[in-house]
């Protein structure tokens, strides 16, 4: 019997095991083989490590970016501090204006965050290459959602940190708020950021389910470009420069006062309602509104998790479909080939290829739309300049403004070059081998890239000078002098763009806007601006002599003429040196490129 009893024990144990509920057994079995499910930190680890490695790689990079960010923060802080201090001086309507400005701020952030989250979620959820890896790994959709959600949130929300933190700090300083305001700001910002991220994830999933990812991405990129351009132009048409004068601030105050009461159903209103009582600007229920924000954020987060959990695989599968355009693609390159026929052989081929690729890239189109907005606003600025008051000095002011305009036009061209010239080497991408293994000289490739960039930029710069000088009423002779001066400056700026683009290539990104905001692009921008400033400084004195001679007719001596000639020569030499040194540096870097 004893033997029977011994035999029964393992059987009972086995029965006990069999009786264990299936789910628990499966979980226990899975955990015993695979360990616990991957944590959020684990899933974000590749991004965190990549960021750490990037910081380790170059010490200059965080230093330069940190300095620029601090400078921007300081500027934003002082602008808000000044505006809020003015509002405080208006005893009767001050609190109302503060309140309206805060709501406006949150409303603006929310709009931009919505758009930004939709575009970012498309990349993080449906276009990132490592999603394949996560799908193949034992990671459930809920965790995948959490990891990608955090990434989307962080990527999309930096703008709020950049613009918002100094603004909120200004509120705290001006209103001498206690620590509860700063704690309340942080507490309100978290759900405030989560809400558009959750909506963005759901909207993106819906868009991907309807359109293939490439089409969706193109449409969203174009839409974001158009919306940003419209917002930019609209902002400019509000003439924010009026804020610089007391009467202007009064006008802005009147504008704010005209805005109606914000809707009580919007998260932007709730966020404002959390902060205003903490500023002691007016009584309210900050905890109630914080609870509204937090619960809405929680519900929307769970809804986005549920959507991703149920629909991700279907949407992901849809996202893998490319565009099938068939024979419709052909006419573009044929038309371009005919158009470029007069050019030499290799530049013609490279130009046709670059333009074909460019025109099929929605990212570039959105950049073009933004560029158009930039130019419209730039030219508009000159029509709005208050210089034609009929005073005797008006003519001089016009001439001085036109001289500054030389530097400004070069600055606008540089801004465009950062978007289009700097990324041009990176956008060759991993296909660089096609050009490099072909019997084409590196200098030919460089010159092709140079002319492709220089001709439209020179056209743009010259048109800007002609238009703005026309609005300023500048003489034809001076306009011609400025046009002649701008051409070599643009050549040097383009050459610098190719040099920095080749020295800091980014072959992983296909998004020119992303490449244009990289470290190398910032260095390029700063270097180009330094060059433009130096050229303008060198020419300032001789041109001012010409101005005064035209007005007061003071005699210009031989020594002054010689000094003016030297100044022009120095500016020309500097431009030529920048062009040639950059060209050589670009060729050296291009020879070393190993995508």
């Amino acid at each position, binding site marked *: 019997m004893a033997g029977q009893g011994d035999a029964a024990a393992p059987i009972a144990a086995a029965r006990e095991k069999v009786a264990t509920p299936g789910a628990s057994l499966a979980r226990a079995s899975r955990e015993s083989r695979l360990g616990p499910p991957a944590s959020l930190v684990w899933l974000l680890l590749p991004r965190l490590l990549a960021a750490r490695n990037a910081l380790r790689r170059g010490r200059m990079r965080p230093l330069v970016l940190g300095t620029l960010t601090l400078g921007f923060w300081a500027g934003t802080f002082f602008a808000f501090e000044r505006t809020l201090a003015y509002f405080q001086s208006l005893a009767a309507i001050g609190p109302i204006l503060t309140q309206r400005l805060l709501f406006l701020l949150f409303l603006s952030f929310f709009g931009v965050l919505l758009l930004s989250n939709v575009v970012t979620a498309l990349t993080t959820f449906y276009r990132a290459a490592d999603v394949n890896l996560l799908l193949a790994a034992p990671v459930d959709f809920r965790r995948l959602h959490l990891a990608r959600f955090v990434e989307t949130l962080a990527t999309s929300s930096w703008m709020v940190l950049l613009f918002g933190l100094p603004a909120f700090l200004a509120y705290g300083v001006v209103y001498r708020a206690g620590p509860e305001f700063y704690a309340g700001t942080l507490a309100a910002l978290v759900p405030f950021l989560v809400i558009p991220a959750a909506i963005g994830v759901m909207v993106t999933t819906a868009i991907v389910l309807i359109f293939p990812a*490439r089409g969706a991405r193109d449409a969203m990129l174009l839409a974001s470009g158009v919306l940003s351009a419209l917002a930019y132009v609209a902002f400019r048409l509000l003439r924010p420069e009026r804020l610089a004068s007391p009467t202007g601030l009064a006008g802005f105050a009147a504008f704010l006062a005209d805005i109606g009461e914000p809707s009580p159903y919007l998260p932007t209103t709730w966020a404002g309602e959390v902060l205003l009582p903490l500023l002691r600007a007016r009584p309210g229920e900050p905890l109630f509104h914080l609870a509204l924000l937090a619960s809405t954020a929680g519900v929307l987060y769970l809804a986005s998790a549920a959507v991703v959990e149920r629909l991700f695989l279907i949407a992901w599968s849809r996202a893998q479909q*490319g*565009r*099938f*355009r*068939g*024979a*419709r*693609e*052909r006419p573009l*390159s044929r038309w371009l080939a005919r158009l470029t026929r007069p050019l030499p*052989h*290799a530049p013609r*081929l490279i130009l*046709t*290829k670059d333009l*074909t*690729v460019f025109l*099929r*890239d929605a990212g570039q189109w959105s950049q073009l739309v933004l560029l158009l907005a930039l130019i419209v606003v730039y030219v508009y600025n000159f029509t709005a300049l208050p210089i034609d008051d009929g005073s005797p000095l008006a003519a001089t002011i016009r001439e001085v403004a036109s001289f500054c305009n030389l530097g400004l036009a070069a600055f606008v061209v540089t801004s465009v070059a950062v978007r289009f010239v700097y990324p041009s080497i990176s956008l060759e*991408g*991993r*296909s660089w*081998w*096609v*050009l*490099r*293994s*072909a*019997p*084409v*000289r590196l200098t030919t490739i460089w010159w092709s890239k140079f002319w492709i960039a220089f001709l439209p930029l020179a056209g743009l710069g010259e048109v800007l000078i002609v238009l703005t000088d026309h609005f300023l009423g500048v003489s034809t002779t001076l306009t011609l002098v400025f046009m002649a001066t701008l051409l070599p400056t643009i050549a040097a700026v383009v050459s610098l763009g190719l040099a920095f683009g080749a020295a800091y290539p980014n072959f992983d990104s*296909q998004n020119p806007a992303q490449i244009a905001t990289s470290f190398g692009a910032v260095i390029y921008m700063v270097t180009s601006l330094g060059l433009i400033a130096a050229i303008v400084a060198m020419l300032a004195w001789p041109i001012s002599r010409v101005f005064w001679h035209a007005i007061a007719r003071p005699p210009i001596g031989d020594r002054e003429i010689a000094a003016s000639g030297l100044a022009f020569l120095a500016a020309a030499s500097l431009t030529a040196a920048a062009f040639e040194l950059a060209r050589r540096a670009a060729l050296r870097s291009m*020879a*070393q490129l*190993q*995508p």
Partner: protein
Amino acid sequence: MIRFVKLRKSFGALRAVDDLDFAIETGEVFGFLGRNGAGKTTTIRMMMGLLAPTSGTVILGGHDIRREPEAAKALAGFLPDHPFLYDRLTGEELLRFVGGLYRVDRRELDRRTHELLEEFGLEPRAGELIETYSHGMKQRLALAAALVHRPRLLVLDEPMVGMDPQGALALRRRLGDLAASGVTIFLSTHSLDVAEELCGRIGIIDRGRLIALGSLEELRREHVSPSPAANGLSLEEVFLGFTGTAGIVA
């Protein structure tokens, strides 16, 4: 057709390619074998002018790749190990672009483009963007691009990777035809059966150094074992004999 002259490439302390010095005759099909990281791709990149050697050079058809890169490159067609192509061009546009870079006459390019697209089974999708192509289609398109200017030398780095069995078979036949027509082929591959079938001579590179060079018979006879039993060894066995079996998981 190809002459490596004391070719060397160092990356810091690492000597990736170490004094390669040998020649490949016109019309020869040469198999370039080695383990991962042995220096095959670095050698090929230097050969095609994509990477500057630390010292030495490669002479293609009498043209020094360092001194006359355009003349040397004009002779060769190249298929890299990862043939990234311009995603926003169509297959046909890519072939026309590459043909243009090699200055193929316009009429000949028209004819050649359609011929190659048809031969590689890409004609039905010729007007679609390359981003919509599968990996195998991109591989076939890159090979077509390497052939568009009728090169006298074909440099192929792992051409079989990603190809389906039909594509791989077609490629083997095509390489056989090209070799028969006198085209020199430099083939870097891990597909030892392909190398055994096609290559007249084989070079084995290990840690940057050429450790074996000759026909399969010569490698069997001179480097592995002089015994008659060595005659039946496959290229795989010969290769493992030279490079060792370290890294093989049982």
